[in-house]
Every structure is written in structure tokens, then in C-alpha cells.
């Protein structure tokens, strides 16, 4: 059970630890150049719920923000697991994770968000390239749990560079491991076989693999294949929990949001009630219209198009892009 903070007088609820900070509980080598990281809530509480395909924003102590797919067990509400590949050209991000991040460190957390959800189907074909295995791991666990017919084709440069082979070993011949230095490029047409209405194809990996998959599934129904491109996005300078200013447009007041409080808390402390509920960026109750400034979105709700629009935010978790002042319709 999650622990619950002592009750308080009427006012904001505080029974769930803020989701915006996590502790690095474990760092473990998973393969050549790949470490697995387990994150927990510093207060020992539950972490926000997620489903296979979800990723989190990890705000590293050096100020870089990176996105990583969750690849742990969602039935354990108290831990997230991500796996990080060392990118050869990385300056911050993955290099920081490999060289500097230590167990016990605190990191910022955004999301989880899911733009790669697993849809129900009686049969799945999974294709992973390298570190692209990460979002597929919980999908595979789930497909197995519901008794779906599934097969994984897992490619990589060499066996030593391929993470989680040990965990996947228990699935026997449902898992086809194909290191490039042993078997060459993945033979997608042979793996996919004849198009079938009942099958969903999930693939994650580098661009050439996904391009090859697009060619190989040209004859499949358009809804069959779902892919996520693994790109090492680094958004430097963004995301750390710095203080920022919010102007409440209806009264013209400007308030400061400190490092250790949420925008929702700061607005509430200024005497303006914004109705909220989950306070984890999942329920959507506190949606607030943004008139000016760029929000640093940390919620689980808005998809990329919504974020691009930039016209609303969830002040229970989201903040301002450093340097920007937000003007809210409050």
C-alpha cells in the first residue's frame, strides 16, 4: 500500500508524494553500453500509473532532459525502470547517465506519456532494433499475460550489445534473436509472413529498420503496424525545477513559483482557486488556458500536437520553459 501523509485541515491534499522528483535506486549494466536504471519515489509512495509504450521525461542533474521508455513492471507501483544506451555523440544526456549518475541521486520526472500504446489484438509481431527493445518489453509481458499469440524479432549489432536477452530467454522460441554480426540484416518479409487482419505489428528501433518495416508492410492493412522511432532527443537547458513567474491575466497579478512548489500550489497560495483532483497530471481537471509563454509540459495527457498548440497546461505538474513568464487565463 502507498503510505498516506497525516491528514490536514481543509485545503490542498498532500497524500501523494510529488511526482516530479525520483530517486535513482539502482543502476545496473544490461549490455555493452546499456545501463538499466530503477527509479523510486523519494518518499516511498506510488509512482504515477503507466501502460506499455509509455515514456518519461528524465531531467538529469546537469540540466538536460531526455525521454526514455518505461521497461519495468507496472504491477509494481513503486518503481520505474528505464534503459539507457550510451550515444557516441552524446554530450549531456546518455553520457551523463553512464559517467556521472549515481545511485541515490535525485532526478526530475515528467509524464509518463504514451504515444505508442498497445492496442488489443489476438496476435502480435514485435520487431526491436537495439535499444528499441525497451518499450516492447512491457508489451511482450502483457501480450503473454493475456494469452495472445506473439513473436519477437530482436536485432542488434552483436549479442553483447543487446539488452535483456536474459529476461527474454524464458519465452523460448517466441523470441528470435538476430545479432547482425551473426545473421546479417533482419529478414523482415520472412518474419512478417502473409498479411493478416488479426495481427498488430509493433516496432521500435533506428530509422533504417523502421523504413525497412514500412516497405515490408506495404501490403498489410493500414492499421496493422505501429512504430516508434528511437531518436536520441536532447533538450538541453530545459526542464529543471527552477522558479518562474506566472501572471494571472484576470487580476493582472504576477506571482512567483518557487523551485519546490507547483504552479497550482503557488496560484492557490495567492488566493486563486483552481479546481484539481489527481495532482499527477493525469485526470485533466486543472486544465488552464495559457495566453502567453511556453509551458514545460510534464503531464500525461497532452499529445505532441496538443503541446505544439501550446494553449493549455496542467499547473499541478507542468512548469515554464526557463526564462519564460506564463500568462494564464485565471
Amino acid at each position: 500500500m502507498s503510505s498516506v501523509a497525516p491528514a490536514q485541515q481543509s485545503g490542498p491534499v498532500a497524500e501523494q508524494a510529488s511526482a516530479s522528483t525520483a530517486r535513482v535506486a539502482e543502476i545496473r549494466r544490461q549490455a555493452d553500453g546499456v545501463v538499466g536504471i530503477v527509479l523510486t519515489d523519494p518518499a516511498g509512495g506510488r509512482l504515477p500509473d503507466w501502460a506499455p509504450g509509455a515514456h518519461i521525461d528524465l531531467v538529469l542533474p546537469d540540466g538536460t532532459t531526455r525521454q526514455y521508455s518505461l521497461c519495468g513492471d507496472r504491477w509494481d507501483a513503486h518503481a520505474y525502470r528505464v534503459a539507457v544506451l550510451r550515444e557516441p555523440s552524446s554530450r549531456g544526456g546518455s553520457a551523463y547517465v553512464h559517467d556521472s549518475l549515481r545511485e541515490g541521486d535525485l532526478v526530475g520526472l515528467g509524464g509518463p506519456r504514451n504515444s505508442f500504446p498497445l492496442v488489443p489484438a489476438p496476435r502480435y509481431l514485435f520487431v526491436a532494433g537495439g535499444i528499441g527493445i525497451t518499450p516492447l518489453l512491457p508489451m511482450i509481458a502483457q501480450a503473454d499475460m493475456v494469452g495472445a499469440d506473439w513473436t519477437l524479432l530482436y536485432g542488434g549489432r552483436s549479442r553483447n550489445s543487446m539488452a535483456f536477452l536474459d529476461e527474454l530467454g524464458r519465452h523460448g522460441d517466441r523470441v528470435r534473436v538476430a545479432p547482425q554480426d551473426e545473421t546479417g540484416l533482419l529478414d523482415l518479409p520472412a518474419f512478417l509472413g502473409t498479411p493478416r487482419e488479426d495481427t498488430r505489428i509493433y516496432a521500435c528501433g533506428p530509422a533504417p529498420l523502421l523504413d525497412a518495416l514500412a516497405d515490408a508492410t506495404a501490403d498489410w492493412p493500414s492499421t496493422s503496424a505501429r512504430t516508434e522511432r528511437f531518436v536520441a532527443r536532447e533538450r538541453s537547458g530545459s526542464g529543471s525545477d527552477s522558479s518562474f513567474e506566472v501572471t494571472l491575466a484576470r487580476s493582472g497579478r504576477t506571482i512567483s513559483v518557487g523551485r519546490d512548489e507547483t504552479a497550482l500550489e503557488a496560484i492557490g497560495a495567492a488566493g486563486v482557486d483552481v479546481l484539481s483532483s489527481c495532482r499527477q497530471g493525469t485526470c485533466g481537471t486543472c486544465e488552464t488556458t495559457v495566453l502567453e509563454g511556453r509551458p514545460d509540459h510534464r503531464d500525461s495527457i497532452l499529445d505532441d500536437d496538443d503541446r505544439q498548440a501550446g494553449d493549455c497546461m496542467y499547473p499541478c505538474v507542468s512548469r515554464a520553459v526557463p526564462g519564460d513568464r506564463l500568462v494564464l487565463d485565471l
Partner: protein
Amino acid sequence: MSAPTLGRAPTIDVDPFCDEVLADPIPLQRELRAAGPVVHLSTYDILAFARYEQVHAALVDWQGFQSAAGVGLTNFRTEQPWRPPSLLLEADPPHHDAPRRVLQKILSPRALRSLREKWFADAEELVDEVFGHGPRVVDIDAVTELTEAFPLRVFPDAVGIPQEGRENLLPYGDHLFNTFGPRNHLVEEGEPRAGDLLAWTSRQCRRDVLAPGGFGAEIWSAADRGDILVDQAPLIVRSLLSAGVDTTVHGLSAVLHAFATHPDQWARLRETPAAARVAFDEAVRWESPVQVFFRTATRDIEIGGRTVPEGHKILMFLGAANRDEQHWGAEADRFDLGRDPSGHVGFGMGIHQCVGQHVARLEAEALLTALARRVERLEPTGPPRRHLNNTLRSWESLPLRAHLA
């Protein structure tokens, strides 16, 4: 059952589903909260939570307290449900994921923006119809004329079901929410019509029945995209029709009853119409239209110093949690627009939290805004009458006098 384990919790012998308690659950809620964090209900030999802390903890712990064994007293592991189980309410991850994801997107605040203007206009139109433009003092029954009338005017259209047969929606919902309780006289009285109501409701979920552009048609579009299975679509539409009408009606009744009995709060709303959203949620906290739900332990779970054994049902008193002085302060029983009701569990909490909450809030905001514009003061003209339901706290009749501005 394992009485020694259960028996260590303080025992309450009152049946929470007897007519007397359903008519006024507040005294029992106090007794349950005072008895301890976990209480044994001897009538059903189950453990129950009535304090905010344990209710909240159980609601969010979907791993430990599952819904797929039913959210009523009936245990689907051993007993047959009366209808095919809901893909949302009565499901756990992973099966719960896709239906929830699809419906949450369709009912999200962003998606509802397109309805806002129309619903505000509809509310003004209804309020004008009810109060006319003659006498300055009008007597109404707020339930039939406003709180049932408004959701029935806007929601079925938004889903896209035909006009014919909409009178079945409220009785279907009423029976469904009764069936989450024990098989008492309320359930028995509903059973003769239950088959027909379920059959009618199920017919409204078919693709060819649903108007283009509505929530129902969008659910079918999600099936076409492969986001859900085709045979899941009708059951997801059914969820809208099951849980989307009665609950909103009772929430609206709650807020109008609250205002009629707290004229100072009505004056406050008229001064600050933007408080309509907070007012509705405060009424949902105060009245808790959905009073109770059950869960089933998936393993032996420690909570509140007791162990809930694997496979056992637990009963969560949402209404009691929403008035827990330990959480809300000494004035928890007061309806107060100055309170921040955020975090109440009237819509539940966690992955099963009411997926239609933003729809309900928009309906309430529209109706309250229209009423605040026309009505200076509301007062009761006679005793309000409760409608008894095993799950819902509702009014059958709210005779009110409106003094128009």
C-alpha cells in the same frame, strides 16, 4: 470465511443498504469513521473503509484492489454478473487500458471545448422555458424540471442516440446502480424490467443507430482505427449510457439542494459566477452522488493495521471519506464555496476515476451559470423527497421557489 482475521476489526452490525441508512447515511458514516480505519460489517462479513486515508489508498491501488471481480457486492470470481461486465468499470489492466484510453480522449476537456458554447446556450434556453418571462416568483420541482431535464436534453444528443426510448436511460441507470448492492427489495423491484432496459440500452450502442460526430460514433471510429477491438465498441458506448446520466442528474440535484438550503452560498455564486465549477465539485464532495463502491483484494493486503485476505471484497464509503473531519477539517459537513474541494473522491481516484467527470462539470457549469443569471434566490417550498438506491444518493423531488432577478 476467515472470521478470525476479519473479526479483529471493530464490528458494525448495521446494514448499510437498509432503507433507513440509504435515506440518511450520514449517522452511519460518522459511526464507521469513528470505529476505526478498517471496519467489519457483520451483515455481509466484509471489511470496509470510511476514512479518507484508507478509501483514497484503496482507490488508487488497482494492483492490490481489483475491479474485474465486480465493483459491487457480487464477486465475479464465483458468481455470474447479471449483464456482460463493463470494459471500463469492471475491468483491470491490461484489458482496461485501451477502452479507457479511447474514451478518455473522446471525453477530455480539450475535446469538449466544441460543446461548450452549445451547452451554455441550451442551459439558457431550458432556464428560460422553466421560468418564463412573467411572474417574478416561480415554484418548480428542480429534479424533473432542471436536473433531469438538462442532462437528458444535452447528453443523449452528444452520444448520438435516437430520440425514441430515452425515457429508459434513467431507469436503466437506477437499476444498474442498485445491482452493485445486495439483492434487496430495491434490486428485486427493478428486476422485472431489467432485461428489457438492458436490451434497449444495448441496441443504442450499435454503429448504425448512432449519429455521426457524437461520442458513440467516435468510439466506433476508434474501432476502425484498430485502437480497440470492433466487439468492444458497443460495450464502451454502453458505459456512456450506464454511468453518464443518473450520476450527473444526482450531482446537479445535490448542488441545487445545497444552494436552496445555503442562500448565502448562492449569493456568493451570483457575485462570482466563475465559482460554478468549484461549487459543483463541492456539492459532489458534500453529497457524494456515488456513495460506495467495492473492490476485491488480489492478495493479502495490509491496510489500516488489518489484513484484507486475498479474494475478499472490501467496501469503500466514498461519501464518508468526503466528509472525514480528519481530512477536511471540523466543518466537513458544511457546504462551503470557500473550501477547495480538490482531491475529493466523489468521482473516485486513480485509473478508474470517472472518465466522464469533465462532461458532468461542463453540464453543471452551463446550468449553474444560466441559473445564476436569472435567479436571485432559491428556497425550498416543501420537504425534499429522497429516491433510494443502493449506490446513489439522490433526490426524487426538490420543490423549490425561485425568486427571479
